C-alpha cells in the first residue's frame, strides 16, 4: 500500500450508498474513500454505475440511502458549490454561444476572476477556437469546452465523467498530464473512464461492476493482486472472479 502515514482527511467519503434509478438498484451499498490531492480513476463496464456515483458525489443524484461527504460537508451543500467542479458525461455547454462566451458565463456564475477564462482556454488548448461558435466545434473540442469550464475558479475537487472521450491520443496524454499537475498543486480528481490504458496514469483505481466496488487500489497493487500485466486484464480477472464468487 502506498498510503502515506497520518493521511489527511479524505476528500470524498461515501458510506453504504444505495441509489435506485428507474426502479432498479444501480448502486448497492457502496463504501469508498477518495484521498485528497490524488488522481483517482473510476473504471468499469458501461452501465455499471460510474456516472451515478459521480452524480451522487456532486449532489445531483437522488439517493435511496447512505452518506456522501465531500471536503467535510454533505455532498451538494451550498459551501461546496465553488469548491467542487463537475464535468457531465455529455458536454454541458451552450452550443449557440462561442467558447469564450460559454466560459465567461460559467466564470460569472462561479465568481471566478475574468482572466481565468484565458487561463483555462490555454490549459485545454482551445485558444484558437475561443471565438468560434461551440456548435461548429468537433466532438473532442466541445468536450474540452466543458472541461475548461470545470477548471474555472480552481476547484479543490474535480469530478470528471469521461473527460477524454473522443480525443486523439496526443491530447489525451496532455490532459492526463494536466490532471497530474492539478493534483500536484493539491486538487483532488475523480475521473471516470472506460479507456483502460488511461488507468495507468491514476494514483488510485476504483473498479466497479454492477453498482458495487470490486477493487480500490493502486495500479501496482492491482496488478500484483491479479497477476495481470495490464489494467485491462486485471479488470477482466476481477470481474471473472466476482462472477464465479456470485455463482458459487
Amino acid at each position, binding site marked *: 500500500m502506498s498510503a502515506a502515514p497520518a493521511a489527511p482527511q479524505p476528500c470524498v467519503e461515501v458510506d453504504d450508498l444505495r441509489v435506485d434509478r428507474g426502479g432498479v438498484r444501480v448502486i448497492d451499498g457502496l463504501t469508498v474513500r477518495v484521498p485528497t490531492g490524488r488522481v483517482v480513476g473510476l473504471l468499469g463496464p458501461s452501465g455499471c454505475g460510474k456516472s451515478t456515483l459521480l452524480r451522487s458525489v456532486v449532489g*445531483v443524484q437522488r439517493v435511496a440511502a447512505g452518506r456522501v461527504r465531500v471536503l467535510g460537508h454533505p455532498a451538494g451543500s451550498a459551501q461546496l458549490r465553488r469548491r467542487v467542479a463537475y464535468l457531465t458525461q455529455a458536454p454541458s455547454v451552450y452550443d*449557440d454561444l462561442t467558447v469564450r462566451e460559454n466560459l465567461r458565463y460559467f466564470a460569472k456564475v462561479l465568481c471566478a476572476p475574468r482572466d481565468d477564462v484565458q487561463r483555462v482556454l490555454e490549459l485545454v488548448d482551445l485558444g484558437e477556437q475561443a471565438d468560434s461558435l461551440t456548435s461548429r466545434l468537433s466532438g473532442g473540442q466541445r468536450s474540452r469546452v466543458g472541461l475548461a469550464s470545470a477548471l474555472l475558479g480552481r476547484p479543490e475537487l474535480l469530478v470528471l465523467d469521461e473527460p477524454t472521450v473522443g480525443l486523439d491520443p496526443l491530447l489525451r496524454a496532455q490532459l492526463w498530464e494536466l490532471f497530474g499537475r492539478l493534483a500536484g498543486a493539491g486538487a483532488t480528481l475523480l475521473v471516470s473512464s472506460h479507456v483502460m490504458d488511461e488507468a495507468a496514469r491514476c494514483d488510485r483505481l476504483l473498479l466497479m461492476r454492477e453498482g458495487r466496488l470490486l477493487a480500490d487500489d493502486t495500479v501496482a497493487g492491482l496488478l500484483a493482486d491479479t497477476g495481470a500485466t495490464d489494467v485491462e486484464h486485471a479488470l477482466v480477472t476481477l470481474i471473472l472472479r466476482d462472477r464465479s464468487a456470485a455463482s458459487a
Partner: protein
Amino acid sequence: MSIARTWASAARVLRQLRHDPRTLGLLLVVPCVLVGLLAWVFDGTAVFNRIGAALLAVFPFVVMFLVTSVTTLRERQSGTLERLLTTPLGRFDLIGGYALAFGLVAVVQALAASGFAVWVCGLQVAGPAWLLVAVAVADAVLGTALGLFVSAFATSEFQAVQFMPAVILPQFLLCGLLVPRAQMPTVLSRVSDVLPLSYAVDAMGTVTTRTDAAGSALADVGIVAGFALGAVVLGALTLRRRTP
C-alpha cells in the same frame, strides 16, 4: 438570489439569441406582419381597433411561451442545467435571468408591434400608449414563466411545442377576443376569470377605448404580474438539484 448571477444569466440568454438572428427577426417581424394583415382584412371597419389591441397582448404571451419552453427544455436536456445547479447559481437566479432577458425582448417586440399598429395601421389609442408596452411586457414574462414550467413535463421539443395549443388556445378562446367575456355562458366566464390572458386583453381594451385608462389597466397589469409571479414560483419548483 444574486443580482449579479441573475443578470449574467439574462445576458447569456440574450447572447444566445444574438447568435440566432433568424429567431430574433421572427420575434420582431412576425407580429408586425400579422397586425398589418389584420388591419388590411378589416380595412375600413371598427373591428381592427378591438382585435388589433387584443392581439398585441396575445403575441408576446404566445411567442415567449414557445421560445422559453424550447430553450429551457434544451437546457434541461443538454446537461447545462444539471451543471449549473452544482454551482452557486440558484434556481431563482436562472428563472429571473430568463424572465429578464425575455422581458427585454418583449419590450422591443412590443415597441415594434404597437408602433406599427398605431403609426402604420392607424390603431386608435385613447389612453396613454406606454401602457400597451407595459401590458405586453407583463404578458411576455407570464409566457416565459409558464413556458419554463411546462418544459419540465416535456421530454422532447415536439412535446414542448404541443403544450402551446394545450396551454394557450383555451386562454385565447376565453379571453374575450371572440366573444366578450360578459356574454359567455356563466361557467366559461368564471373560467375566464381565472385565466391571466383575459386580464391582459381587458387591459389592452381599456387602453384603446378610455382616456382615463391608466388606473384600471394598471390593475389588470398587476393581476397579470401576479399570475406571472405564481408561474415563476411553480417554474422554480420544477428545477430540482437532485434528480432521480
